[in-house]
């Protein structure tokens, strides 16, 4: 089933995933239920336990296709997932389905909760924008659709960086604001570059002094890199470059 999303992504959810999550929930729930007492007919009074797992599949272009899922070990006391278990499962699934990546995670319940963000962020080092699939296991006979919701990551930071990188001030600003945005981006990039150069500089100095043994392979690579300087060498460039800098200050 496809759905609209704010980021323009199209989602396809395979029935297997819905069955998996439902099955996971059902098994855990039935295992957690204490033996039925004769008096009240065996209904568990505490809220049913939530289950957690990963969803895997493929993302190509703007389409995210969720093919499969697997269960994860969750520690309610620390509200965290068992990391090594996750990685082990990931490795095993990668062997059988080499094309599938971890797209995000799933859980059960009627609504997304604040505490879910903790798990969501933990997954961000596997997938930079994970999706969250929520299955509502409570049976509602009036509901016609499947009780599944998919949440995407909202990345405020990325949006603003995007503006700078692509010269898109939110109000479509004047040429001056666009230039300022552009130059700010360049300034950050140069600062980063400069710190890298300093690291290289220190490293080479240490080699020259003999503080560290000379690493020939690295030295060859640095010499290859330095060969590329200066990247643009002409009077015209110098003039243009200086003109832009003067304009900015």
């Amino acid at each position, binding site marked *: 089933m496809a759905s609209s999303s704010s980021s323009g992504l199209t989602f396809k959810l395979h029935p297997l995933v819905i069955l998996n999550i439902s099955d996971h929930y059902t098994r855990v729930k039935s295992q957690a239920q204490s033996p039925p007492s004769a008096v009240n007919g065996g209904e568990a009074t505490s809220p049913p336990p939530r289950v957690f797992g990963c969803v895997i599949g493929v993302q190509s272009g703007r389409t995210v296709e969720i093919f499969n899922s697997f269960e994860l070990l969750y520690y309610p006391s620390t509200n965290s997932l068992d990391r090594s278990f996750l990685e082990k499962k990931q490795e095993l699934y990668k062997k059988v389905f080499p094309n599938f990546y971890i797209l995000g995670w799933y859980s059960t319940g009627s609504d997304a909760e604040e505490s879910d963000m903790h798990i969501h962020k933990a997954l961000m080092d596997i997938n930079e924008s994970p999706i969250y699939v929520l299955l509502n296991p409570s049976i509602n006979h009036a509901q016609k659709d499947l009780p599944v919701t998919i949440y995407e990551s909202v990345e405020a930071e990325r949006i603003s960086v995007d503006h700078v990188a692509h010269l898109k001030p939110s109000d479509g600003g004047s040429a001056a604001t666009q230039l300022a945005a552009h130059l700010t981006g360049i300034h950050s990039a140069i600062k980063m570059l400069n710190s890298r150069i300093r690291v290289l*500089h220190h490293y080479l100095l240490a080699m020259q002094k003999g503080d560290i043994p000379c690493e020939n392979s690295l030295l060859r690579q640095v010499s290859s890199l330095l060969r*590329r300087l200066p990247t643009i060498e002409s009077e015209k460039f110098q003039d243009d470059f200086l003109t832009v800098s003067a304009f900015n200050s």
Partner: protein
Amino acid sequence: MDIEQRQAEHIEYFVKQASTHNGASLANVVTQATSHSSLFAFSEIIAVPSVHELQGTENSVYLDLLKLFAHGTWSDYKSNAGHLPQLVPDQILKLKQLTVLTLAEINKVLPYDMLMQELDVTNVRELEDFLINECMYVGIVRGKLDQLRRCFEVQFAAGRDLRPGQLGSMIQTLTNWYYFRF
């Protein structure tokens, strides 16, 4: 960077070979190393003690050969051929490849005429084939061939072994770069 990754295992292999051989068999190792299609760096082999000990022996020309491949060019070989072992075709090819790397160090744009002269190539077609097949496809240079202006614009060239004193000038270049002084 890819070149360095690829040749790392060959460097390790030849360093091991060099440390376990002497005299004539070591000379053989040197010949193999300088003929190997994926090896373009020789500092590590030169640093092996048994190689250094070739100095002054009847096989010292092999040490000189290694130094030629580390820092020298095809022209250097020609002017000194009398004092060096005869080169086999694979060695000649490698020396010419290394020559291109040295030329790219000085200029980013290499005129065809200069390249043809340095590499002893008589026509443009042969030169372009060499640059494409033996240099770009091998991965030691990346660039653009400008047939109209008859030149080769080098965007990337692998680094050769460092010459004595080159470390100092590299540090100076880095200092200039950091402080934006050109």
